[in-house]
């Protein structure tokens, strides 16, 4: 792989950009691999990357039914934060956030990580108490956050209306090293690095069945034929229940639609991420100038990547109260993704009842921020055949054992 660098830009400028290579190969599948990952979203690609980099397992295929990064990874609003309440969540999300800090250098691919700061508004007494508690917990966990007063909120984000009619801003939980990254670039960067290690990314290839023998996984059936493996990772977000059924077990998951929208580009007016959980909306400004807006999920199961219009309407209405300046902005695009929501709203990284088959899912409305940490922990779990320390709290048996990871205070809204 030729490195991207300033020298490469100069070199290519001098020869009409004729020397750029394809970022990854598109091979036909081999008959057998040491490990197979289903799903080339951020989590699947990161898992493959750390399997190779941290554990030396490089004979790996990543199988994707559409195009890589075309699932929720390419549809999300890219908020990155790690200000969670419970220790096990803070550990894995902070691992991910800290990996994001140097991911561009690590992958030699600009993922545009921008630690511009994330602000979660407190608009009720309950939220104040909840966020103060989270700030204390974060201090103990070594995650830098603080509870700030309305004056500081206004200083950090001048376009905010503090004394809105329904829910005045009473303060905020502030994580200065939270922010955003370019979602596609995260998938592309990992894909390029995986391909460079000799891994096969097989796109437009759907896994249609999971092959078992004596309670162990032996391979997968795909639209491009049978591929054998004894080490399988299912990392397919909204489609998890379908593949779990083929593997012979059930999941505590429901697939629902989550939507987002972006406005026409405007001049820079907001250099932080603001989340307003009480009124169900959040907003940031992309480098192109578009206001990136996300809202809540629909209440019913849905596999269509389309959501109900009235949810978008509610979100926009709520955000106009908080940011009156956006009331006449035109919206350019709106879309949905199928997110995988678990019974306790926390993710699953786990062994499964089928030996050799592992699952990583349940990131729901907020797994973009977790991609590097989740891949790190999943790779360790698949390489050792047992849950890594980061992953152990997120195992499937927690639902039977009642060990829930209750993050309802830290994550009251889609994020």
């Amino acid at each position, binding site marked *: 792989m030729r490195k991207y660098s300033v020298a490469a830009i100069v070199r290519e400028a001098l020869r009409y950009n004729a020397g750029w290579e394809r970022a990854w190969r598109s091979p036909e599948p081999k008959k057998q691999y040491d490990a197979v990952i289903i799903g080339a979203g951020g989590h699947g690609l990161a898992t493959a990357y750390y399997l190779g980099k941290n554990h030396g397992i490089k004979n790996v295929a990543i199988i994707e039914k559409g195009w890589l990064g075309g699932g929720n990874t390419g549809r999300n609003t890219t908020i990155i934060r790690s200000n969670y309440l419970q220790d096990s969540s803070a550990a894995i999300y902070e691992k991910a956030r800290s990996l994001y800090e140097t991911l561009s250098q690590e992958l030699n691919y600009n993922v545009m990580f921008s630690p511009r700061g994330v602000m979660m508004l407190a608009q009720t007494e309950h939220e104040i108490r909840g966020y103060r508690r989270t700030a204390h917990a974060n201090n103990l966990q070594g995650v830098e956050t603080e509870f700030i007063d309305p004056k500081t909120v206004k200083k950090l984000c001048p376009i905010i209306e503090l004394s809105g009619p329904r829910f005045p801003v009473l303060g905020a939980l502030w994580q200065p090293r939270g922010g955003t990254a370019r979602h596609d670039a995260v998938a592309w960067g990992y894909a390029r690095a995986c391909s460079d290690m000799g891994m096969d990314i097989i796109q437009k290839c759907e896994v249609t069945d999971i092959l078992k023998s004596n309670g162990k996984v032996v391979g997968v059936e795909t639209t491009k034929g049978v591929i054998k493996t004894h080490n399988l990772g299912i990392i397919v977000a909204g*489609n998890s*229940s*379908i593949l779990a*059924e083929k593997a012979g077990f*059930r*999941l*505590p*998951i*429901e*697939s629902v639609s989550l939507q987002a929208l972006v406005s026409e580009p405007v001049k820079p007016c907001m250099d932080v991420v603001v989340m307003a959980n009480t009124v169900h909306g959040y907003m940031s400004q992309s480098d192109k100038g578009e206001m990136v807006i996300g809202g809540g999920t*629909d*209440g*019913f*199961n*849905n*596999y*269509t990547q389309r959501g*109900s*219009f*009235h949810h978008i309407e509610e979100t926009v209405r709520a955000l106009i109260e908080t940011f009156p300046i956006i009331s006449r902005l035109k919206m350019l695009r709106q879309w949905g993704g199928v997110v995988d929501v678990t*019974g306790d709203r926390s993710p699953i990284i786990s062994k499964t009842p089928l030996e050799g088959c592992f699952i990583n899912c349940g990131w729901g409305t907020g797994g973009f921020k977790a991609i590097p940490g989740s891949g790190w922990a999943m790779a360790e779990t698949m390489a050792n055949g047992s849950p890594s320390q980061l992953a152990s709290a997120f195992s499937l048996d927690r*639902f*039977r*054992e009642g060990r829930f990871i209750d993050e309802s205070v830290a994550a009251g809204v889609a994020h």
Partner: protein
Amino acid sequence: MLVILCPYCGVEAEETELTAGGEAHLERFGPSSSDSEFENYLFMRKNEKGITFERWHHTYGCGKWFHAARCSMTMEIFGTYPAQTSKPPKKLISMIKKKRPEWGEGK
């Protein structure tokens, strides 16, 4: 916007009048059940891609719970029926089978 017929008051209710209540016909398990029965009842879900039976609440209407058969891929509503039953009516099942011959019931 989904439009679902409430089998009690007969109103063609819009989605905003209704609250979704999740998978229908879950078998209830109490304190004397095994851990896995209890886990299944509380958390494990079919989450079908395709035909799904679910509960709905006519929140801003008659206030009653009822059942609906819906496709989670096309959003087609096949029919609704009252809450006082532990399985979908036979007539509804055969109507769905006629419309979707490839459908494997009860998977």
